[in-house]
Structure formats: C-alpha cells, structure tokens
C-alpha cells in the first residue's frame, strides 16, 4: 500500500484506530515509522503542556471565589457590545482584496444557508426555508464596493470588485473575480485580479490567476479562513444552536428585478459572532435580505462592513442576480490547474 497520510498517522498517534493494513505498512516503511514517532513526540508534548495548565489551580480558585461580587445571587446580565474583529492579518493588498471578496461572498452563502436552517416566527422565512431545502444550485453576482478609495500610505486598491459565484447544494463553490469586473477610479480595469477560486466540498481547492498564469492549491492557506461553504454551514448550525432567538425586522415590500420582494433585517453581528473571527468583515448595521414573493428564495442581500483592525476601508457588498436551480456545468468545480501555469502553492 501507499505511504500513510499525515492524518492517518495522526489517527494512529492518538490511538483512535488500529488498521492491520497500516500496521503492516509501518513494519516495512522506515519513513512512515519516523513520521509516526514525530507525531507521538508531539502528542506527548501536548499532553505535558496541557497538564501544566492546571498549575496553581487551587490558589487560583480561592482568589476567584474571593473576587466574586458580594451578594446572594449573581447579578442580572449586562449586555456588552461585541468588539470589532480583526481580519486580513498579514496579507498583501491583492490577497486582502481577494479574501474580502471571497469571504463576503462566503458569508452571503452562509447567510443563505443560515436562513435555510433556522425556524423563524415569520411565515415568509418558513416558506423560504422550504424552498431552499429543495434548491440544487445557485448562481449570483456579488459586488463589493469600497467607500473610501483615497487611502494615503496604503496600497492602491480597486473601488469595486465584482465576482460571479456558483454553488451546489452539496457544498461545491466557485468564485470568479474576472478582470472585466474590476475598476479603479481613473485607471480603468485592473487585470491582476483576474482570479478564480474553485472550492470543491471536502477536496483541496485551487486559486488560478489568469493574469500571472500561476496557480495555488488550497487557497485556504491564504489565511486561516476556511472558504469551504460546507465547513461554514456546520459552524453556522452550531452558532444557531447557541442563539436560537434571532429576531427579524421587516423592511416591507419592494420591486427588485421586476419581481415583488419582501425584505428583512437581521443582526449579522449576532449571527456570525465569534465563529468567524478570522474571516468575516466587521459588519456595520444589519444585513438586509430580500425574498422573492413568488418563490420565497433570496433575490438580493446587502451588507456593510466598517474598518476593523487591519481593514482600513469601509465597504458594502451587494449580492444580486440570484439564479436558482440553473443547470451548472460540473467542470466548473474541478480543481485542475490549466496547462503551462506555474505552481505557486506555498509549502505546507
């Protein structure tokens, strides 16, 4: 058999499996044995480091109990506002722009999923949930606009990035930020953003840059943000498990794309909260979602984000042109680099 993967070796190191085939391979393969030994050293060190976290516990407990406010019962809760979260850490301008576009679109995807999974008091939301559960695919256009293009001392970025997003219910996703969608004020198109992310569910992804003719495998490594919509779905479900009380505010009815739509405002800070520490924009105000009155599916989603620790510019993201259940070419989600392109995957 082939050599054991790092994950298989990890499985052996923590003792959650015993595959005779793997054990047999280890007998014959010094390289895998060596890797397993390293993993075992690491797990032993992790155990030691975690044991050390119990140091001084009794004294710490005594101090804590002394510090508890005097009175018979813990006081009533005081709601504190969430602090702005940082993101974009250590990325260059190009990566920041790409990630911002992709994470914003990923959030839209999550948001759609979130709506699909939550049971709200509003009937419209119930209907939408039903419709979404039957949806097989979705294509949208997401436009991210930066409010403040003049940023002295900061790399020049575009004013506006538009991406086309394809998603399948199974979790595959693809984000095309094509050059014809990118504009810089006074400079026309900015072609270095001619980049595509292919993110098949559960498989390594691919970032292809058609301008530099390069590719990177698994763009997740660009930042700690996991861009796989399926991962996010899980997180959102968990988040919901903790905050089942999310409330919606009606925004009334209006005509969008010649269709009648009902709007709702949702507190994104509450929904996306802590789980998206590394990948979410710092939302400014509620997320607006508009549902097609006939199909009950989203027709427009709008959100604003404010400057955070490392994001200097406020921006707004509008996702429109929702096309549900269209026939989507499966080739769109195959992560094969084009011939002749240079592999720029950073070493793992």
């Amino acid at each position, binding site marked *: 058999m082939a050599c054991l*993967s*790092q*994950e*298989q*070796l*990890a*499985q052996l*190191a*923590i003792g*959650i499996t015993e595959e005779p085939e793997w054990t047999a391979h280890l007998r014959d393969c010094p390289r895998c044995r060596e890797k397993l030994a*390293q*993993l075992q050293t*690491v*797990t032993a*060190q*992790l*155990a*030691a*480091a*975690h*044991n*050390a*976290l*119990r*140091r*001084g*516990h*009794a004294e*710490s*407990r005594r*101090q*804590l*109990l002394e*510090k*508890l*406010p005097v009175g*018979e*019962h*813990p*006081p*009533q*809760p*005081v709601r504190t506002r*969430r*602090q702005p*979260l*940082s993101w974009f850490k250590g990325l260059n301008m190009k990566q920041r722009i790409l990630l911002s576009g992709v994470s914003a679109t990923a959030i839209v995807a999550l948001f759609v999923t979130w709506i699909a999974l939550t049971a709200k008091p509003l009937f419209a939301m119930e209907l939408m949930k039903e419709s979404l559960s039957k949806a097989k695919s979705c294509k949208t256009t997401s436009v991210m606009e930066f409010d403040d293009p003049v940023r002295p001392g900061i790399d020049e970025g575009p004013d506006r990035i538009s991406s086309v997003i394809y998603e399948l219910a199974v979790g595959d996703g693809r984000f095309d930020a094509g050059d014809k969608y990118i504009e810089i004020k006074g400079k026309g198109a900015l072609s270095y953003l001619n980049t595509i992310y292919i993110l098949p569910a559960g498989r390594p992804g691919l970032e292809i840059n058609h301008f530099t003719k390069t590719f990177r495998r698994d763009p997740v490594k660009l930042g*700690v943000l*996991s861009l796989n919509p399926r991962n996010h779905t899980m*997180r959102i479900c*968990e988040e919901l*498990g*903790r905050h089942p009380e999310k409330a919606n505010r009606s925004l009334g009815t209006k005509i969008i794309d010649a269709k009648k739509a009902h709007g709702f405002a949702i507190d994104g800070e509450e929904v996306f909260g*802590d*789980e998206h*520490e*590394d990948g979410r924009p710092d939302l400014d105000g509620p997320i607006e979602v508009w549902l097609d009155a006939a199909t009950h599916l989203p027709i427009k989603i709008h959100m604003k984000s404010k400057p955070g*620790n490392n994001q200097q510019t406020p921006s707004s993201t509008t996702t429109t042109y929702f096309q549900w259940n269209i026939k989507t070419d499966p080739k769109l989600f195959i992560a094969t680099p084009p011939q002749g392109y240079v592999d720029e995957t950073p*070493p*793992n």
Partner: protein
Amino acid sequence: MDTLPAAATSMGSMEHSEVTDADLVSQTLAGNRDAFGCLFDRHGAMVRAVVGRVSRDWPTVEDMTQECFLRAFNRLASLRDRDQFGVWVVGIARHVARERRRTLRRDRHEFGNPANARATTSGVADLETAEQIEQLMQTLSNLPERERLAIHAHFLQEYNAQQAAELLNLSRSGFYALLKKALARLVATLNAHNQQEETKS
C-alpha cells in the same frame, strides 16, 4: 437546600461526577459560590488554554482566566442552556483573548519574550524540550480556531471523549475527524517552520 451532592463538593479530584454543569449553574444562581468553584475546576484549564493563545506569560494568562469566569458569573443568569456552560465560557474566553490581543499588539514584546514564555513549560527541566514545547504551543496558537479547540479538549484531562466532542458541538466521529486534521496540520506547520529555520542557517 443550597448544598451540593458530596461528589461535586469534593471536586479537588476534578473528576466529572453525575453532577451536571446545569446543576452547578443552578446551584450558583441559588447562591452557592462553591458550585461556581466547581465549574471553575471543570473548565478553568480550557479557558487558560484558550486565552493562552495571546500571551504566554503565566500571570497574564491567569488574570485573563479569572476575568473570563468573573464575566461568566456576572452574566450567569443570561445563560439559557445551562448544560452549555462549557461552550459558553469558552466563547467568553475567546472574546477576552481578542480584547487582550489588541492591547498586547501595542505592547509587542510580551508574546515574543522568551523570559515570559512560561505558561506551559515551567517545571520542564530539560531546556531543549521546554523550547520545543514553546514552539509547539506557538504553532498551535496559529491553527484555525476549531482545530485548536479540538486539541485542547482532547489533551485536557478534565474532559472525557464524549465531553470533548460536546464542547465542540460535534459527534464523537466528527470530533475525531477534526482532531486528526488538527494534528496533521500542526505537525506539517512545525515541519515547514523547521525547514525554514534550516535553510536560514
């Protein structure tokens, strides 16, 4: 009325008994402070692990940990699902850690100063091993959050396999899948770092 079952009050052993977190939360809300101490016994180390991401300085870690539990105490009445105390206090810890990270960024020397790097290695006699563990914990602190939490939950003796999985709202198999992914990434990152160091020298 406000007394705890014996198993819970003898929490020095830090063993989980049939007393649930929900019981302890209820007891605390009824005015029993020692019950809150028991919650601290159960989840204190996890909170230290989470806040330890932003500082390796032990007094700072301890200070943040107490801050987390004080906030939890003050807001305890707002906790809806009392069995979720662990998940909840870990959420508070992440929040406190982020707040502190911002302060520490302005005051950069703290994380990088090896003299302060004692949070998990004091008592390790062998200096080389101590350094390795520091390197390991630094690398761990850069892992994606869920993977980091899975490693903490697995390696802290306070949690059995079921409790570790529950802390991440995962099934047992889901938890192990995340854990092995986390370990694989941790080792790969360590190796990449070591290779870089080698080519530098």
